[in-house]
């Protein structure tokens, strides 16, 4: 590959990824999608800050009862979200509890990307029988209820953060595979890939320098849409008592623990749920907004 092509690729990267993806976010004027993305982004940032600085934000040790705390104290200035049977401060536990969902979903998305994307790229690029078999397998897995798959896998793998992340990743691999493969198929037909072939680029070069950079465009949208789902799945697994070791602060587990005292102390189940809802809504807003912005751009480019 010569200089010109490298420059062309740089140009495409700059132009299509940076400008097309993020340009509309900064453009002036009324743009609902961009506003959605920003709102979602700030809520997400809020949660990341909480998770990182949990030791400084949480007033009490989440793993010990708050000193002198009564059991089932309702929310007050001292215990903003109340206390449970043993006098644990729920607020501190919820703050610390933001770590596991964020870590697990980030890890699981990374795992499914690492597997799903290259397989999708290669499958779409090679085509033929291998492609058809892979599509069939992935579609079949995708048809199966993801949560049930994750439940069974976590039950077999045993507790642990990595194990949960792997279980969730398996559920989402077909999603990444499908999207990347379909996009590869359409990019493959495009003129500049043809020209790359004409100047004698090898298959590997075609994939890495021509196809992959373009296919990657769809991934941010996919990730943000998928992240909301991953958070919900992680919380569901913890709610069912799977995966995350007992006593670890985690939103799903707090809801499950609190549900036993629903009448006496409704706050115990209520507050962790609000945090889940907020984070999932934030991620959905980012996903939906990016989708609205990026999809027409990608479509427009494909029609050029």
């Amino acid at each position, binding site marked *: 590959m010569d200089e010109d092509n490298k420059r062309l690729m740089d140009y495409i990267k700059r132009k299509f990824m940076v400008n097309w993806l993020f340009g509309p976010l900064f453009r002036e004027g009324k743009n609902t999608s961009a506003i959605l993305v920003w709102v979602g982004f700030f809520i997400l940032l809020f949660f990341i800050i909480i998770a990182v600085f949990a030791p400084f934000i949480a007033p009490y040790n989440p793993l010990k009862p708050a000193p002198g705390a009564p059991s089932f104290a309702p929310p007050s200035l001292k215990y903003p979200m109340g206390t449970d049977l043993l006098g644990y401060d729920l607020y501190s536990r919820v703050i610390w509890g933001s770590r596991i969902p964020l870590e697990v979903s980030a890890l699981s998305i990374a795992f499914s990307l690492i597997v799903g994307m290259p397989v999708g790229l290669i499958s779409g690029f090679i085509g033929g029988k291998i492609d058809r078999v892979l599509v069939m397998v992935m579609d079949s897995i995708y048809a199966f209820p993801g949560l049930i798959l994750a439940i069974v896998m976590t039950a077999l793998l045993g507790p642990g953060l990595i194990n949960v992340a792997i279980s969730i990743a398996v559920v989402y691999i077909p999603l990444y595979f499908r999207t990347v493969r379909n996009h590869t198929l359409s990019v493959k037909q495009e003129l500049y890939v043809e020209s790359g072939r004409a100047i004698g680029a090898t298959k590997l070069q075609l994939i890495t320098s021509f196809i992959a950079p373009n296919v990657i465009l769809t991934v941010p949208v996919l990730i943000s849409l998928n992240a909301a789902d991953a958070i919900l799945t992680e919380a569901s697994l913890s709610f069912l008592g799977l995966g995350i070791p007992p006593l670890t602060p985690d939103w799903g587990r707090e809801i499950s623990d609190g549900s036993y005292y629903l009448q006496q102390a409704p706050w115990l189940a209520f507050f962790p749920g609000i945090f889940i*809802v907020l984070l999932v*809504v934030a991620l959905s807003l980012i996903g939906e907004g990016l989708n609205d912005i990026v999809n027409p751009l990608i479509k427009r480019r494909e029609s050029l």
Partner: protein
Amino acid sequence: MAERKGSLRSYILSRIILAIPMLLIIITFVFFIMRVAPGDPVAAMLGPHAPLAYKEKLREELGLTLPLYQQYLNYLAQVFTLNLGSSLTTGDSVATDIFVYYFPATLELTIFSTIVALGVGIPLGKIAAVKRDKKADVVIRLFGIIIYALPIYWFGFMLQLLFGYYLGIFPTGGRLSPGITPPPHITGLYTIDSLLTGNISTFLDALWHLALPSITLGLILSGVFIRTIRVNMLNTLQSDYVQAARARGVDEKEVINRHAYRNALVPVVTIMGMEIALLFAGAVLTETTYSFKGMGYLLVWSIQNRDYTMVQGAVIVYSIIIILFSGIIDIINAYIDPRIRY
């Protein structure tokens, strides 16, 4: 017209043929997860500190000491004869337990939830599209996003709290009130069986117990329908045939209801097909939340009680149901929309 029927028949046939490899793939995938992937089922069942001899005995009992291919063949035989072994905790036949007691409960819940999801989602989606960008549209879309973000169990607890404990309108768990005997087993669906035997009070009690779980699961699923109906209807409202109908001086109400709305409803069956996985996953959480003894409840219970054969049986039945249901939906779809077959 005979030709049309013929093409439907060949479509159904090809759909059935397609279902077989899909079922094989899922079944194999389940086998892979349960036997080949890291994680020892016996250790998972007995816990890390169980005596070694104990583990070996169980391994033998479950056929886990056989060579892998033999295990796979035994497993396939199990699946296709639906002889799923017996429960490690109760000793009951897994297949009988699932098909007689647990699956009908799940079926009942999913049917009623789907009714709620459609009943809420379709009208709201329609209103949002007709009132595009007005207040009603914004509120409905927000509702759609938030409802989809709710953890099902949390939403269930909040509804229990409100309607069960504070208002006392609905029961918070179970399929029937204590003291009421289940209707004689015909289909396993309490509402249908009680109606078939003419037992109205049992029917009402079963319906009363179904209310909160179905509303919980149905409302959460309605978000997807709101969204799709809205988008579809925005498209059909701008379609050429709607414009042509307006040019013919057709009443605006008829334009919306007859042309835009009916055409927007066509893909609903397709969405239902895609929602099946979500429906059954949601049912697992709903059943756990409401102690509603369906397959999801059984699955979680068996995992907690380390009943390996029961877990495997439940997953196999899930696979069969999913393939069966999505096949049926595809066929219904082809029947409704003649264009699919062309």
